[in-house]
């Protein structure tokens, strides 16, 4: 497992609008391939506030002038995410990664990608991979209001290019369908639209997604979020209750778990 700890130059920070933002980072040439669902631990500031790094899904990767670029999608919540959002072009962000076990694409068939808010950050590379593999998929993207569906157009382009669609769902109806994203999922599952489900978002949402898919006999995977002290297996802080009664480590055994691995 190739993991690097590198200083990355900030190429740009874009607001979508705040609290959502994307930050582009230029990595050294030998930065390893990132699998969909993998994450990095980012240290936005050399000071001690915050002290620990924060986990960020790798939202997108690209190459420019020979150098690999990472793009992260952040939502400003507390000290770590706001520090990162405040970086400027030319600043350094330290990145440890890629980390963890990503999505497994084998046998995905026609897939539903269910994103809740900034959880979409774990799903864009997956959409790209499915697109590249010629698999059809829909993206069910939910949030409170239209602004919570940051970068939705990127998902729309990929999904429609792969013979699927973006289903936007907002609680206040300000974009797409009004209601919960899990309601849209339930409708599609009832119509046997998908062979597999991939999800990332708030834990209660993912638990509901897993329960619905399981009820309809559709397998799936979830990219989980836990507090993380280190991201690389040292602190044992990121316990996820496993079906077998033991604790898995989100950072090492995950962050992506099969629905039936997790004791929700």
């Amino acid at each position, binding site marked *: 497992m190739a993991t690097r*700890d590198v200083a990355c130059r900030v190429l740009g920070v874009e607001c979508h609008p705040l609290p959502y933002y994307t930050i582009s980072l230029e990595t050294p040439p030998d930065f390893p391939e990132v699998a969909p669902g993998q994450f990095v631990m980012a240290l936005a500031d050399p000071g001690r506030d915050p*002290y620990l790094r924060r986990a960020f899904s790798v939202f997108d990767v690209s190459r420019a002038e020979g150098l690999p670029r990472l793009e992260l999608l952040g939502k400003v919540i507390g000290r770590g995410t706001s520090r990162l959002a405040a970086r400027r072009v030319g600043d350094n962000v330290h990145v440890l990664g890629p980390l963890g076990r990503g999505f497994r694409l084998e046998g995905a068939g026609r897939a539903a990608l269910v994103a809740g808010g900034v959880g979409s950050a774990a799903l864009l590379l997956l959409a790209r991979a499915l697109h590249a593999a010629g698999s059809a998929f829909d993206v069910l993207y939910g949030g409170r209001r239209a602004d919570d569906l940051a970068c939705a157009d990127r998902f729309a382009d990929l999904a429609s290019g792969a013979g699927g669609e973006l289903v936007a769902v907002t609680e206040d109806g300000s974009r797409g369908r009004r209601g919960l994203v899990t309601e849209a999922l339930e409708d599609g599952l009832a119509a046997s639209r998908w062979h597999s489900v991939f999800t990332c978002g708030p834990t209660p949402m993912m638990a509901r997604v897993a329960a619905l898919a399981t009820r309809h006999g559709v397998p799936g995977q979830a990219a989980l979020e836990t*507090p993380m*002290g*280190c991201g690389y297996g040292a602190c*044992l*802080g*990121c*316990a996820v209750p496993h079906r077998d009664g*033991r604790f898995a480590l989100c950072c090492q055994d995950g962050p992506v778990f099969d629905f039936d691995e997790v004791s929700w």
Partner: protein
Amino acid sequence: MASPPLTSPQAVDLAVRVGTLELGNPILSASGTFGYGLEFAHLAPLEQFGGIVTKGLSLEPLLGNPPHRICETASGMLNSIGLQNIGIRRFLDQVLPDLADYPAKVVVNLFGTTPDEYVRLAELVEPQPGIAAIELNVSCPNVKRGGIQFGHDPELLGDLVRRIRAVTGKPLIVKLSPNVTTPAAIALAARQAGADALSAINTLVGMAIDTRTRRPRLHTVKGGLSGPAIKPIALRIVFDVARASGLPVIGIGGIETVDDVLEFLLAGASAVQVGTALFRDPRTAARLVGDLRQRLFEDGIASARELIGGVLLEPGA
């Protein structure tokens, strides 16, 4: 200084001893913060560590506590891992052999809930040539004595150390809890019971609440505070117990920079352990070895040993 001028950083002598434990340099990883070491060889140059203190080991494997197990606090973190570990036997069979490839000294951190468990652990460790020393985590409640922590009562601690001393010839390091009125009294009890050295400090008991949910941030409500926040407390305790007991001390608590290492050595530590800082950056320990070498070179100090206990006090302090 009377010593001949140093020609290069390589000429600096970083070797230290903690009682009879000899270390190539004074930087160790702290228990519970770098697993069993090997797992992270791809992230940090283990061969540069002075020593590796293992995750706390018990007779039987432990699954640990349910989530949430950690949360960040100002310049620190709380943890309540619940002493999750693979058990002493699996460690000895499956991990220890591979650790032998590294020059870093292996220190096993042991804990139990009865003195018998500690003794049995020490007996299992005793015949292992690959283990350089034993560190006792005594911040565990003694289940037979109503849950008082071994490390909170000089008498309980003394009895425990005496029984372990009787079954091991390896350097025996007692890891002190900071959550007591007089750490020096515990340190003296450890010495009188035959401990070779002390390490200080373990975490301080703390708590945090999520004001959105009104729930404690840790499943166990309380947890152990570590990181730079606790460094001043750690330094005070190292200073006190080194003077009170005369035993060599390994300093622990919030160490992250070469200045931190120097502070602990000057306060009386013979070596240090790095914990929480490894979470932030797995290369911290190796970096500190290099930084220490460079700093001593720049300051014209030929040996790290010259610093130990070297804090300058006003007469009478």
